[in-house]
């Protein structure tokens, strides 16, 4: 059986033709997408429309906290509402907290970050790292993003998993799984490992979280049966 590809971040904050977006997603070969939107009604509408296109849609919240208390407060209040939680880390304090908090699924480092990813971060990291492809496409952030991607692959590959998402907000910004995974291939990873970043790794996170959100879930490793 072939791989089931997942686009781990599609940004629906802007007004777009949802049918066009979904048909493009399907054409590119994705079966599952994770969508972030401030407007919950739009997210629900997209989920319903996704069914008719044969695309599974999951909700995602992207947190941009200023410090550790703000991050913990956001996580306490919003974790149960979305299938996936990602944190954009603008400082080291937030990065170190979100890297090891089990309520966070992916950690995103912005291109112009003011801290280094080194052994200290590598020692505590438990969650996956997400690399949004849009920052490579955007010429203003491209150089910083490539530097960041190099840092991530050099220091964190093998210690945690890496996910590449499109973070597209328009159909033209969407990229196919092979295009997304080519970033990691160019950075020196094996082709199959690179393809895992757009298929099995995000797929596993979704499945784990669906289980966590189900009513039969009691605690880690404990499920109510019957």
């Amino acid at each position, binding site marked *: 059986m072939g791989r089931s590809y997942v686009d781990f971040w599609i940004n629906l904050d802007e007004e777009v033709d949802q049918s066009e977006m979904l048909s493009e997603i399907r054409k590119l070969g994705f079966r599952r997408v994770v969508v972030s939107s401030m407007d919950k009604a739009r997210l629900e509408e997209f989920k319903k429309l996704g069914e008719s296109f044969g695309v599974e849609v999951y909700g995602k919240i992207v947190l941009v906290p200023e410090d550790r208390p703000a991050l913990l407060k956001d996580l306490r209040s919003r974790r149960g509402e979305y299938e996936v939680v990602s944190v954009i880390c603008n400082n080291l304090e937030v990065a170190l907290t979100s890297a090891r908090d089990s309520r966070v699924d992916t950690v995103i480092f912005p291109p112009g970050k003011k801290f280094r990813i080194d052994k200290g971060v590598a020692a505590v990291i438990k969650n996956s790292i997400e690399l949004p*492809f849009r920052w*490579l496409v955007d010429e203003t952030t491209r150089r910083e993003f490539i530097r960041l991607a190099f840092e991530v692959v050099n220091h964190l590959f093998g210690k945690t998993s890496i996910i590449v998402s499109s973070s597209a907000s328009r159909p*033209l910004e969407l*990229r196919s799984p092979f*295009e997304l995974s*080519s*970033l990691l291939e*160019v950075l020196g990873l094996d082709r199959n490992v*690179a393809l895992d970043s757009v298929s099995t790794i995000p797929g596993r996170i979704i499945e784990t979280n669906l289980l966590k959100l189900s009513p039969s879930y009691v605690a880690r490793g404990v499920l109510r049966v019957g």
Partner: protein
Amino acid sequence: MVKRKKRYIIVETSSNIPLDVFRKLVEKSYLELFGEFGLIQANVKVVKKIDSTFVLECSHGSVPKLILSLSSITRLEEGAIRFRVVKIAGTVKKVREIIVGE
């Protein structure tokens, strides 16, 4: 001398553009990301154009680099443009089969 392996990349564009413009765009993008040495090593050539589909030839080892360069192209003058990699093939015969089959 060992024969260098080639790969053919079939690319679909969101709008119909002339072959020269396409070649310049691809070369510029590759040059920006991987430099002069990279571009020469990749040996990128535009083999064919059929409507809005192009066939590119490159060295075997440069395929991911070329795909990355193609996907980082977003603008053509003032308009937006996107290139979609349809398929990668090892022989011209296979390319023909794919294009006929589409």
